[in-house]
C-alpha cells in the first residue's frame, strides 16, 4: 500500500494496460470470449475503483498539482516522468474510468470477432488517455497524446463500418498533422527553457515560467500558440478543422465512438487548458476573439449541418462539433464562469454524446442501419429505449435539470461577460440544437410504425439497461448538483485563469507559488 500511496497516479494510469497484457494470456481466440469479457470488464472496474481512491485523496483547494510523481526519464534533455493531477484532470480522469466499463459492457454483443485484440486495445487506449490527463511534462504528454492514436486507429479501422479504412486514415493523419506542429513548438519551448534558465526541462511547471515575446499577431508566443492550438483545435474539433470527426464517428464501432466523443475530444479542450493558455497568455489575449468567433461558428454550423444529416450517427457527430464549440467558447471567455462551464461541458458531452452513441449503437445492432428514414415509430416496440433516448436527448439539448444545461448556461454567461454579441450568436445553438435533436427523435421514435423490419425490434436487454443507467443517473446528478463537481475544480480553474491572464503583467510567479503551497 505504501507504494500505492506514492504512486497512485501511475497505478491508475497503467493498471488498464497491465490488465490488458495479462488478458492476452487468456488462451484461444473467440472461444474463450466470456472469460475475456469478464476479465476486461473487471479490469475497467478495478481502474474505476482505483480512480475513486484518487478522488478521495485529491484535496480541493490544495496544491495545484497533487499526488505528484517525478522520476528522471531522459535526463540529458531534462525530460522527466512527472505526473500530477489537478481539479480539472481529476474529473476528466474519472470520466474516462467511468466511461470505459460502460463501453466494454456495451461491446459484449456488438463485437464478435477478434475480441482478443479488441479488448486489449480498449484497455490500452484507456491507459493512453489517462496518461495524457496526468502528464505534467510536455514530452510525456505528447507521448500519451500520440500513443492514443494507435489503439483508436485500429478500433476504427478493424471494427468499424463500411468506410472504416478511409475514416481511420483520416482520423490518424488529421490529428497527426496538427500534433506534429505542436511537437515543433514543444521543441522550441524546451530550447527556450535552456536559453532562459540554463537547464533542460520539459516539465510544465518550469515551462510556465518562460517569458516569450508576445507583442503582435505573429510574435513568438502567437506562433507557438497557434501551433499548439492547431493540434487542440483539430482534436476538439473546432470549425473548420472538424471534418475528420463525422467520418471517424460514423465508421467507428460504438465503443470507439463513445470513447472518441467522450474522452478523446476532451483532450483538445484539456490541451488548451493545460498547455496553450498558461504557456502563451499574451497570445491567448490576442487571439481570444478570433477563437470565440470560430467557436460561435462551430456551434451554429455544427447544428445546422447536423439538421440535414440522413444518418443518425453522423447527426450526433455534427452535434459534437456544435457542443464542443461551446467548450472552446467557454474557455476563451477567460473568466471563471466560462471556464468552469467549459470544463463541465466537457464532462457533459462525454456523458450525453457518449450516451447517444451507445443508443445509436443499440439500434444499429438490431437493425443494421443508421439511416433515419429506415426508422419511425420505434417507441411502440422499444419503450424503454425510448425513455433512455429521450433523457439523453434532453441532456443533449441542455434542458435545465440535466447536466447539459449547467454547462451551456455557464459557458454562455461567461461568454456574455466577455462578448455579448458572440454569446448571443452562440446561443442560437440552443434553438438549433433542439431542432436537429427533436426532429431526429421524432423521425426515429415517433410516427407510425410502418416498416416491417421495425415491428420485431426487441427492447433493451438487462445488460443494455445496465449500460445506460449510470449515464442517466449521471445526467441528472450533474444537472442538479453541479457544485459537487465544481468543488474540487474551483481552485484549479482559478490557477488556470491566473496563468492564462498573465497577459497584462508578465511576472514569473507560477513555480514559486506552487512549491510554496506544498
Amino acid at each position, binding site marked *: 500500500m505504501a507504494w500505492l500511496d506514492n504512486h497512485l497516479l501511475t497505478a491508475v494510469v497503467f493498471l488498464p494496460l497491465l490488465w490488458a497484457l495479462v488478458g492476452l494470456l487468456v488462451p484461444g481466440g473467440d472461444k474463450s470470449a466470456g472469460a475475456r469479457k469478464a476479465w476486461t470488464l473487471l479490469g475497467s472496474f478495478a481502474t474505476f475503483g482505483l480512480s475513486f481512491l484518487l478522488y478521495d485523496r485529491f484535496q480541493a483547494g490544495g496544491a495545484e498539482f497533487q499526488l505528484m510523481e517525478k522520476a*528522471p*526519464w*531522459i*535526463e*540529458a*534533455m531534462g525530460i522527466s516522468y512527472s505526473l500530477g493531477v489537478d481539479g480539472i484532470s481529476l474529473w476528466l480522469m474519472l470520466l474516462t474510468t467511468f466511461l470505459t466499463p460502460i463501453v466494454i459492457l456495451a461491446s459484449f454483443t456488438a463485437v464478435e470477432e*477478434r475480441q482478443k*485484440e479488441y479488448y486489449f486495445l480498449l484497455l490500452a487506449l484507456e491507459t493512453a488517455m489517462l496518461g495524457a490527463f496526468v502528464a505534467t511534462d510536455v*514530452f510525456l504528454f*505528447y*507521448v*500519451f497524446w*500520440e*500513443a492514443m*492514436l*494507435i489503439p483508436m*486507429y*485500429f478500433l476504427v*479501422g*478493424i471494427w468499424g463500418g463500411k468506410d*472504416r*479504412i478511409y475514416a*481511420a*486514415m483520416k482520423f*490518424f*493523419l488529421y490529428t*497527426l*498533422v496538427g500534433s*506534429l*506542429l505542436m*511537437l*515543433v513548438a514543444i*521543441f*522550441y519551448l*524546451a*530550447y527556450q527553457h*535552456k536559453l532562459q534558465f540554463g537547464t533542460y526541462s520539459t516539465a510544465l511547471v518550469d515551462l510556465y515560467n518562460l517569458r516569450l515575446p508576445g507583442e503582435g499577431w505573429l510574435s513568438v508566443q502567437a506562433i507557438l500558440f497557434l501551433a499548439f492550438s492547431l493540434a487542440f483545435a483539430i482534436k476538439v474539433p473546432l470549425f473548420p478543422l472538424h471534418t475528420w470527426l463525422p467520418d471517424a464517428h460514423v465508421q467507428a464501432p460504438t465503443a470507439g465512438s463513445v470513447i472518441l466523443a467522450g474522452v478523446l475530444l476532451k483532450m483538445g479542450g484539456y490541451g488548451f487548458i493545460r498547455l496553450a493558455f498558461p504557456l502563451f497568455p499574451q497570445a491567448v489575449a490576442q487571439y481570444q476573439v478570433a477563437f470565440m468567433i470560430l467557436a460561435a461558428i462551430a456551434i451554429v454550423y455544427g447544428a445546422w449541418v447536423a439538421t440535414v444529416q440522413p444518418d443518425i450517427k453522423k447527426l450526433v457527430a455534427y452535434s459534437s462539433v456544435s457542443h464542443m464549440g461551446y467548450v472552446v467558447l467557454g474557455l476563451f471567455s477567460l473568466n471563471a464562469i466560462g471556464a468552469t462551464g467549459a470544463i463541465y461541458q466537457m464532462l457533459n458531452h462525454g456523458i450525453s454524446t457518449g450516451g447517444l452513441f451507445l443508443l445509436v449503437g443499440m439500434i444499429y445492432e438490431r437493425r443494421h442501419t443508421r439511416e433515419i428514414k429506415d426508422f419511425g415509430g420505434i417507441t411502440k416496440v422499444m419503450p424503454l429505449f425510448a425513455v433512455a433516448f429521450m433523457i439523453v436527448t434532453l441532456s443533449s439539448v441542455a434542458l435545465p435539470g440535466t447536466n447539459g444545461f449547467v454547462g451551456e448556461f455557464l459557458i454562455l454567461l461567461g461568454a456574455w461577460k466577455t462578448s455579448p454579441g458572440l454569446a448571443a450568436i452562440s446561443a442560437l445553438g440552443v434553438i438549433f440544437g433542439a431542432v436537429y435533436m427533436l426532429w431526429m427523435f421524432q423521425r426515429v421514435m415517433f410516427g407510425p410504425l410502418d416498416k416491417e423490419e421495425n415491428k420485431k425490434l426487441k427492447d433493451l436487454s438487462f445488460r443494455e439497461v445496465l449500460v445506460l443507467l449510470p449515464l442517466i443517473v449521471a445526467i441528472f446528478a450533474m444537472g442538479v448538483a453541479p457544485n459537487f463537481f465544481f468543488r474540487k475544480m474551483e481552485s484549479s480553474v482559478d490557477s488556470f485563469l491566473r496563468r492564462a491572464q498573465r497577459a497584462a503583467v508578465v511576472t514569473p510567479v507560477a513555480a514559486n507559488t506552487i512549491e510554496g503551497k506544498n
Partner: protein
Amino acid sequence: METANHLIRPEFLSLGADQIHALMPYFVAFAGCLVTLLLSVIRSVNPKWPVLLGTVATCVAASVLSIEQIREPSLSLFNGMMVSDSFSAFFNTVFLATAGMTALASFRYLDRERLQHTEYYVLLLFSALGMMLMTSALDLIVVFIALEIMSLAVYVLVGFRRADRRSNEAAMKYFILGSAASAVFLYGSALLYGATGSLNLREILAVLQSHPEGMSPIFTLGSWLVLLGFLFKVASVPFHMWMPDVYEGAPVPVTGFMTTGLKAAAFATLVRLFLALGFGKAVASTLQQHVHDILWVVAVLTMLVGNVVALTQTNLKRMLAYSSIAHTGYLLVGLLAGGGSDQGFSAVVMYLTVYAIMNLGAFVVLSVLAEQGDTGLNLHDLSGLARRRPWIAFALAVFLFSMAGIPPTAGFAAKYLVFYSAIQAGEIWLVVLGVLCSAISVYYYLRVMVYMYMKEPVGSAAPSRVSFWAASVVAAMVVLTLQVGILPARLVHAAKKAVTSL
C-alpha cells in the same frame, strides 16, 4: 627525405598494449573473416553450420569487446591514421550486431532460396570489417580502402542471387554507380590533399583552423566532393537513384543489412568527415554557409522525394527503400543541426541506432514473409496478415509505427532528438518541413497496417515456418524498439558519450 622520416616513426612499427587492446575488435573480426573463409572451403562436411557459428561467434566476441571500449578514452592508432574512440566503438557494436543478426536471420532464408553458400557469411563479415575500419579511420585513404572493402563485399551480396536477373541487375547498377561515387570521393580526397598537404582528417582540420581567412577553391571543391561521395552512399536526393533498385533487387536480408549497417557506417563516416572539414564546429566562413545551404536543400529534397514516392509504392520492399531515403533526410537534418546544438551529433547517432534496430527487424520480417524469389511482398499479399500470423503482423506494425515516429516507439524518441537538436540549431523551417514530411510518411506506413489488420485474408497458402533464429531476432528488435521508445535515456546517454569523443 624528411617526409619519409616523418612517416616512419617508432610507434608506427610497434604496438603498445593499450593499442593492441583497442585493436582487439578489429583483430577478432578480421580473424573471423579468415577463419570462416577457411571453413567454407572445407569439403568434407557441410560447412554451413560451422560458418554460421563462426560468423555469429565473431560478431558476438567483437561486439562485446567494442561495447567495453565505448567507455574508454580515445586512442590514436597507426600514426594517427585510425582512432579508437567511443564513437567508433559504439558504431562497431552496431555493425557487428547488425551483421550477426543478419547472419542468424538469413540462415533459413538462404536454405529456402537455395542460396546457402557460405561465402555469404564471409562477405557479411568482411563488409562489417570494412564498416568498422571506415568509421575509425582518420585518413582519407584509409577511409577509401575501408569503403571499398565494405562496398565490394556488399556488391557481391546484392548480386548473391546469381540466377536471378533482378539481383544481377541491382548489383550491376550498384557497382557502376558506387564505383563512380567512390571515384568522386577519391578525387575530392586528392584535391583536399592538394589544398592542405595532408590526407589526415585531424591535420586537415588543423590547417583549416589556421586559415581563418578562408581556404582555396580547391579545398572547397575537394571537401564537397568528399562529402558527395558519402551523400551518395547514404542515398540523399539527388544521389539516391540507385537505392530503390538495389534494395529491391538484393536478397531481402541483404537489403536489411544495407539499410542498417551500411547506412550507419556511411553516416558515421560522414559525421567524421563533416567535422574534419570544419562543418558543424565553429569555423565560420562563407563556405560553411554555402555548404549549409546545399545540404539544407538536399535534406528537404531527400525527405520530400523519399516520402512522396514511397506513397506510390505497392511493393513493400521498394516502399521501405524509399522510406529509407526519407530517413536519410531526417538524418541529414540531424547532421545539419549537429554543429549548432548542445546535443551535437548524438541525435544522428541515436537515430542511426534506432533506425538500424527497427529496419533490421522489419527486413527480417520481410524475409520471413517473402516467398520463393523474394516475391509476395506486395501490399495485397499482406492482406489479413494479422489473422494468419498475428505475431509477425504485430512485429511489423511495431517497426512501422516506429519508422513513422509514433510514440511510444524508439522511432519517436529518435526523431524527437533529431528535430529537437535542429530547433536548437535554429533550423526551424527545416524542422517544420521535416515534420510535415513525416506526416506524409505516416500514410504509407499506415497503409501497410490497413492491409495487415483491416483487410480480409486472401489465398490460403500455408505460412512457411519461421526459424527460431529469425524469430528471436525479430523478438529482440521488437523489445528493443519498445524499450528504447519507452526508456530512451540509456541510449541517449550512450550516443552522447559517443559523440563527445569526436
